[in-house]
C-alpha cells in the first residue's frame, strides 16, 4: 500500500517549509505592527507637546490664550471625579462581589445578576452618558456637576471592579475559610477578617484598572453636556467641572481654528498618559508582590 509518492512529498516539503518560514515572519510583523503604531503615537504626541508641557501648564487655569492656558481646573476636575468614583465603585463593586460569591445561592437570581453585569460591561460608554444625562443631570437635578459625572462614571466602571473582586474572592483558598469557621466564627466575621484581607490585592488591582478607565473616559462626560467654557476650579461635588480628557477633546477639535491648541491637547495627553502609566505600574507591583502567597 504505497500511495504516497515520496519524491513528490519531498518536493512539496521544501515549499511547505518555506511557506512556514515566510508566514512566521509575517505573523511576527503583524504582532509588531501594533507596537510600532504605539511607538509612533507616543513619540508624535510627545513631540507635539515639547515646549508646552511645563510646570505652569499644570498650575495655570484655562484660558483662550494658548500661551498662558493650563490644566489646573481640568486636573482638579479629574481628581474630584475620582473622589466620587473611588468610594462608590469600591463599596458597590466589592459588595456585589461578596454577595455573588459568598451569599447568593447558585441559581436563577445568581446567574441573572452575573449575566446582567457582563452585559453592562459591553454597553457603549456613550449610552451610560445618556443614562447619566437623563437620571442624574435632569431627573435628580444635579446639572452637569461633579456628582452627576462621578456617578455616571461609577456605573460605567462598576463591572470591572465586580469581576476583579469576584476573582480575588474566589481565589482565597478554602482552608482559610475552614480554619475560621472551625474556630466558631460566623460567616460575616470570616468574610471580614479572613476572606477580604486575603483578597485585597486582587481587589485593589481591579480598582486601579477601573479608575484608570474612568480617568481616560470622555464620551459619557461629553453626553452630560459639560460646556467648553472656562470654568472656575471646582470646590465641591455640586460644582460644574471639566476633566483632562474633556480638555483634550475641546482643544483637539478647536485646533482647526487655533493651531496652538493642538500642542495644548498633546501636552494634556502626556499628563494623562503619565498618570495612567503610574497607576498601572502600581497595579503591576501589587500583583507581583502578592502573587504567590499560598
Amino acid at each position, binding site marked *: 500500500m504505497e500511495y504516497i509518492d515520496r519524491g513528490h512529498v519531498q518536493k512539496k516539503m521544501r515549499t511547505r517549509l518555506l511557506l512556514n518560514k515566510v508566514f512566521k515572519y509575517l*505573523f511576527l510583523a503583524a*504582532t509588531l505592527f501594533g507596537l510600532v503604531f504605539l511607538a509612533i503615537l507616543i513619540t508624535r504626541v510627545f513631540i507635539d507637546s515639547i515646549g508646552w508641557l511645563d510646570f505652569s501648564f499644570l498650575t495655570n487655569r484655562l484660558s483662550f490664550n494658548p500661551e498662558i492656558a493650563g490644566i489646573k481646573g481640568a486636573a482638579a476636575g479629574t481628581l474630584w471625579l475620582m473622589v466620587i468614583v473611588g468610594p462608590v465603585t469600591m463599596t458597590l463593586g466589592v459588595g456585589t462581589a461578596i454577595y455573588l460569591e459568598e451569599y447568593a445561592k447558585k441559581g436563577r437570581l445568581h446567574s441573572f445578576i452575573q449575566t446582567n453585569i457582563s452585559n453592562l460591561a459591553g454597553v457603549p460608554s456613550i449610552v451610560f452618558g445618556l443614562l447619566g444625562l437623563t437620571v442624574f443631570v435632569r431627573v435628580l437635578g444635579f446639572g452637569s456637576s461633579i456628582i452627576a459625572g462621578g456617578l455616571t462614571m461609577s456605573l460605567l466602571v462598576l463591572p470591572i471592579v465586580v469581576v476583579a473582586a469576584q476573582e480575588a474572592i474566589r481565589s482565597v483558598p478554602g482552608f482559610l475559610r475552614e480554619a475560621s469557621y472551625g474556630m466558631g466564627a460566623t460567616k460575616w466575621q470570616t468574610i471580614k477578617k479572613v476572606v477580604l484581607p486575603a483578597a485585597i490585592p486582587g481587589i485593589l488591582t481591579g480598582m486601579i484598572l477601573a479608575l484608570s478607565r474612568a480617568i*481616560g473616559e470622555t464620551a459619557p462626560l*461629553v453626553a452630560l453636556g459639560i460646556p467648553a467654557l472656562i470654568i472656575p476650579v471646582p470646590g465641591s461635588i455640586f460644582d460644574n467641572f471639566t476633566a483632562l480628557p474633556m480638555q483634550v477633546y475641546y482643544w483637539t477639535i478647536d485646533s482647526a481654528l487655533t493651531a496652538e491648541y493642538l500642542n495644548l491637547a498633546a501636552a494634556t495627553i502626556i499628563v494623562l498618559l503619565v498618570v495612567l502609566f503610574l497607576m498601572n505600574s502600581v497595579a503591576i507591583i501589587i500583583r507581583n508582590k502578592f502573587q504567590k502567597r499560598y
Partner: protein
Amino acid sequence: MSERLNVKEAIQAKRKNNKSVFVEKMVPVILFLAAFISIITTIGIVGTLTYETILFFREVSFTEFFTTTDLSPLNPTDPKFSILPLLMGTVMSSLIAMFVAIPIGLTTAVYLSEYASSNSRKVLKPMIEVLAGIPTIVYGFFAFTFVTPVLQEVIPILDRTNVLSPGIVMGIMIIPMVASLSEDAMNSVPNSMREGALALGATPLEVAFRVVIPAAISGIIASFVLGISRAIGETMIVTIASGSTKNFTFDVTQSMQTMTAYIVEVTSGDAGAGTTAYFSLYAVGMTLFVFTLLMNMFATYITRRFREVY
C-alpha cells in the same frame, strides 16, 4: 484555670449579644442591595431609552426614521429624522476597523500561541495590551492630527474629516481585544492535538491553520463579534476624526457621522429637553444599545454553544 473560664464566659457573653446576630442577618440584605444596583442600572438604561424613544416616535414615523435618508435634526423650519446616514457611518467605520483588527489580531494571536517562545510571549503580550489601555480620546487626537494628514499624502481627495482614518485607528485599538481573546481560545486547544499533527510531519503553519484554528473557531469568532461591538460603540475617535456630516454614502474619503458621534453632537449642542431633536438622541441610543447587546449576547452564545469538548 480561672483565666480559661473567663475566656469561655467572654465568648458566651458575646454570643448572646443581639447586635452581632442582627449584623449577621443584615449583611446579606445590604450586600444584595449593592448587587441590585447593577440590575437597577440596566433597568434605568432600558427604561429611559424606551420611554424617550416612544416619545420620539410620537412625533416622527417609523418609516421616516428607518427608510428615508435625510437627517437634519436642528433645522428650525423642516427638521428631518432618518437614522440611515448614521447607520451608514457606523457600519462603514466598523467595517474598516475590522478589516484592520481581524487579520492583524488573529495573526498576532497565531504568532503568540503557536510560534513565540514563552519568554517572548511574556514580553509581547503585555506590550500589545498597552494598546487597549490608551484612552480613546488619545486615539481620536492621533487619527485627526496625524493619521489623516499622512493618508492625505497618499489619497489627495481625502477630506479633513473622513471615515477611513478613524476606522483604521479604531481597528488598531481593537487589535489587543481580538488578539487576546483569540489567543485564549487557541491556548485552550490541548497540546496533544498539536503533537498529533506535528508527529505526522505537519509544519507549525499547518498545525495552526488546520488543527488549532478550526478547533478554537468558536472563541475566535466570538472575539471578532466582540470587536465589532466595540467598534460600533466607540465614540471619541469617530466624533473627532470623522466629523458630523450626515452623509448617506459609501465613500469613506468623506466625512460621515456615526450613531455615537450624533449623540455627542446633539447633547453638546443646544437641543433643549422636550424637542424632537432631544428625543431623537434616545432613539439613536436605543438602536446603538440593541445592536451592541445583540452582538455581545451572540458572542456569549457561540462560545457556550460551540465549546469544544476535547
